[in-house]
């Protein structure tokens, strides 16, 4: 556990059997911040037992490779328990980051939240 007060970095909403996650932060950069966001995402799977996660990137303007690492780990965790991860609403500049690293092929990425909800 971090000694820092654990601010909530995620807004979580249940739509049917899909858990929609919005990021509070506009920039997912800071090492410590990424660690906390990663822990909170993993906790949704490990502690809350959620299996269908939809990450909405609508608020996010910025993202580094360390954050991509957390998303890959999250995907792996979900796959291991028969769950699914879908990403949506990714800003074009950030989508380019996924394309360059070829993670656009690795993740299920949808444009809009509505289409993403259908993707499960």
């Amino acid at each position, binding site marked *: 556990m971090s000694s820092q007060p654990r601010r909530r970095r995620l807004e979580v909403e249940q739509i049917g059997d899909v858990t929609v996650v919005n990021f509070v932060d506009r920039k997912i950069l800071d*090492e410590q911040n990424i660690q906390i966001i990663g822990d909170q995402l993993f906790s949704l799977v490990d502690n809350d037992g959620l299996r269908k996660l939809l990450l909405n990137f609508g608020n996010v303007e910025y993202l*580094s490779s*360390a954050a*991509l690492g957390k998303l890959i780990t999250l995907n792996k965790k979900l796959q291991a328990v028969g769950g699914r991860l879908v990403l949506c609403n990714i800003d074009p500049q950030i989508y380019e980051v996924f394309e360059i*690293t070829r993670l656009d092929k690795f993740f299920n990425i949808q444009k809009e939240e509505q289409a993403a909800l259908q993707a499960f």
Partner: protein
Amino acid sequence: MPLTVADTMNYPRDVQPAVAANVTISSDPAEARRIQEEIERHLQARHVSEHDIFSIKLALEEALVNAIKHGNQMDRTKKVYISYQIFADRFDVQITDDGSGFDPNEVPDPTAFENLERPCGRGLMLMRHYMTEVVFNQRGNGVLMSKVFRRNDNGKK
């Protein structure tokens, strides 16, 4: 005498930068953040396009994380040396750490399927994509990066 970006890239050496700074920070992400914000403010004040600023910020983030985390192993007594210049047409930066260096050619291809889940290499790849030039020194503890600004600032691309 350390190499400057202009020496390495064959850029004209007689042009004076509009902004030039040499900063030494401890291996502290908060200090790195302060420098990144300072650079961003300079770029915005000079009306550099949003996409160029996005590119530079991302490359700086990756390079500084590499220096602090991999180079200096988060050891706060070790330093990161940052030198940057902003010209009318480009941004140059040199980032050196106190670590023992690495061989950028040994970093596995992060886009290979078997490496997709490995954390390494992706930052380096983003630096190379977003900057015009990325050159490591021989020891591998220093990187020179340069971004030539897009001429047309009124369109998206």
